[in-house]
């Protein structure tokens, strides 16, 4: 019995390693085939993210949104809901908190309270927005993927509307809002890089999500709903309420992410298309096996891939988008039950036979 568990765990890890490996080799192959200086490209892809302080810090920087959206998707996915509204929320929350920053500016809040208030507003916005597909799913039995994807587009245009009509700075050449008040911005923490306080907020969010999902009764009831809805009903859990909470909290996390991203990295709100961070969250949560505590690891892996691809993109001739294909391959292989399944059942079978040979009398009991 013990052996079976060990073999299963081993294969879980092996599957992730092999999936990443296959994706990585595929990436090398692509680089090798299409790049004019393949060795340079491969070197950049593999070693680039770790080569300079600037690159390393930008990798950490990129982990921040991934951690937020990753824990957002962990929430949704734990309840077995594919509510993808995190994508739209991330963008829209960034837009709303920029707007609110201008509204709240006259209050003269300190540079600690101001960002905190704005992040809270972002979370609130996210929670409210995410409740729409959640209600549609839980009360009306409408597919949450459709509603959330439609909402993402609607939120994109809505955010464009707010940007163009309420806070567009016409004195600059590109389309962006007025400059954010200095007090509202998150302070940098590493001199000479753009890394900011947001990383602590992100780590805090990850830890809180983990505590919530794995150490509170509500979190456990959400996970039970996600794994076996019939069993949760039997246990007296309110399925509708639990799944709603999971989705609303997920939205709040994405909302915080959008706020932190804007306040940490930008001096003006300037997003005019979807950021993709919400969708990246899906990969992060699949890699993390729905457990927020593993989200930083998964976020690191993804950030490493991304920065590697970015370096390849501007140093050679290969566009960074090939990473999105790799991402899909990783998701598919990591989540595939049958991938390496035959080896796994063989290993379990062999282990069982071995233990039977050793102690036939014991097994007979």
């Amino acid at each position, binding site marked *: 019995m013990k052996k079976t568990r060990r073999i299963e765990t081993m294969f879980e890890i092996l599957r992730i390693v092999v999936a990443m490996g296959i994706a990585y080799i595929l990436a090398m192959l692509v680089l090798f085939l299409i790049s004019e200086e393949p060795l340079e490209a491969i070197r950049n892809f593999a070693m680039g993210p770790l080569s300079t302080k600037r690159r390393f810090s930008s990798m950490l920087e990129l982990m921040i949104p991934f951690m937020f959206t990753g824990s957002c998707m962990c929430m949704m996915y734990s309840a077995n809901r594919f509510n993808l509204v995190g994508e739209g929320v991330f963008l829209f929350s960034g837009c709303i908190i920029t707007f609110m920053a201008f509204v709240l500016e006259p209050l003269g809040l300190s540079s600690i309270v101001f960002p905190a208030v704005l992040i809270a507003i972002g979370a609130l916005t996210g929670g409210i927005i995410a409740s729409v597909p959640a209600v*549609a799913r839980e009360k009306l039995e409408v*597919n949450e993927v459709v509603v959330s994807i439609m909402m993402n587009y*609607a939120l994109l*245009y809505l955010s*464009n509307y707010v940007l163009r009509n309420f806070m567009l700075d016409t004195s600059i050449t590109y389309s962006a809002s007025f400059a954010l008040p200095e007090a509202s911005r998150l302070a940098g923490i590493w001199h000479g890089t753009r890394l900011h306080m947001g990383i602590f907020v992100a780590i805090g969010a990850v830890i809180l999500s983990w505590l919530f999902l794995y150490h509170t009764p509500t979190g456990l009831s959400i996970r039970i709903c996600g794994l076996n809805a019939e069993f949760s009903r039997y246990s007296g859990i309110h399925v509708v309420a639990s799944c709603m909470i999971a989705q609303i909290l997920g939205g709040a996390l994405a909302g915080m992410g959008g706020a932190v991203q804007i306040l940490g990295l930008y001096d003006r709100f300037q997003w005019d298309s979807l950021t993709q961070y919400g969708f990246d969250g*899906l990969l992060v949560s699949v890699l993390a096996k729905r457990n927020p505590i593993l989200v930083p690891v998964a976020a690191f892996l993804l950030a490493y891939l991304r920065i590697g691809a970015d370096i390849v993109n501007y140093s050679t001739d290969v566009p960074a*988008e090939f990473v*999105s294909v790799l991402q899909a391959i990783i998701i*598919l292989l990591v989540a595939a039950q049958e991938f390496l399944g035959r080896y796994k059942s063989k290993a379990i079978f062999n282990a069982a036979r071995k233990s039977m040979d050793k102690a036939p009398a014991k097994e007979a009991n």
Partner: protein
Amino acid sequence: MLETYWNVEWIGSFLFSVIRISTPLIFAALGACFTKKAGLLNMALESMMLVGALCGVLASAASQSLFLGFLGAVAGAVAIAGIICYCAFFLKTDLYLTSISINLAASGGTVFILYLVCGQKSTSAGILKSLTIPKLTIPLIEKIPVLGAAVSGHNVLTYVAFFCVFLVYFLLKKTRIGLRIKSVGENPHAAESVGISVRRIQTISFLISGVFCGCAGAFMSMGYVSWFARDMLAGRGFISMSATNISNASPFLSMLSAMMFGLSQAIANALQITSAPAELVSALPYIMTILLVMLFALIRIGRRRRKMAKLAGAIQEE
């Protein structure tokens, strides 16, 4: 204000745009009928269409043959369907997760290929000499006021789309494969018990879905516009899927609901040229979709509730 719109020419051209906008939605909704009848939701319509659109442009530009271009579009979409089937039915990855991640891969992957071919990431316009599928004027009807303006002069594929409604009806209703698809969707155990492989039928339904999405993709990049642009589908796959779900996978009703969504898009387009804020108008079709889907769900739930109440009432009376 009203006069500028409420005239014969405007109505004619408005109806024309409804039909034009509805074309890809109809194709994809028809494709979704097959998977829905087989008991599955096809959430990868979006990526199938997107890849179809790109392959159409590439194949027609490379071969300078319209036929090969169209074939390329269909082949691309079917290939995506095949990948999904392999992952979901053979590797046993969750179908939702498979579809969503394939959608993500397609939106990035098409940009990647676009860049490799054209050297830029936003559009193939002006760089690739891709072909477009010709328009067709209908000799007599063309002359009829309003109607002529609305139905004549469309892209060939538009007429094909409407013809396909009948084709799908025929395939689902009158052929062996249609029968098997329906039986698998309704009672997989029954199908299995008479020797029908559920996995095979589901795969076939996805591949057929792919063919229709290929047509939709070809229309998008070789008819609706004459180039490929990144994320040019903008959620049309999900709108089509909703159209099929609302209409319970009946081909005729799917066409009607696809046109209903087309109408809201056409209204948005018409409003673009007014003083209404452009961004809000662009959001309109998506908001309309959400509202319509919810409305139909409310109707469905209300109907079910009444039925249950009636049943309970009958017992109480006894």
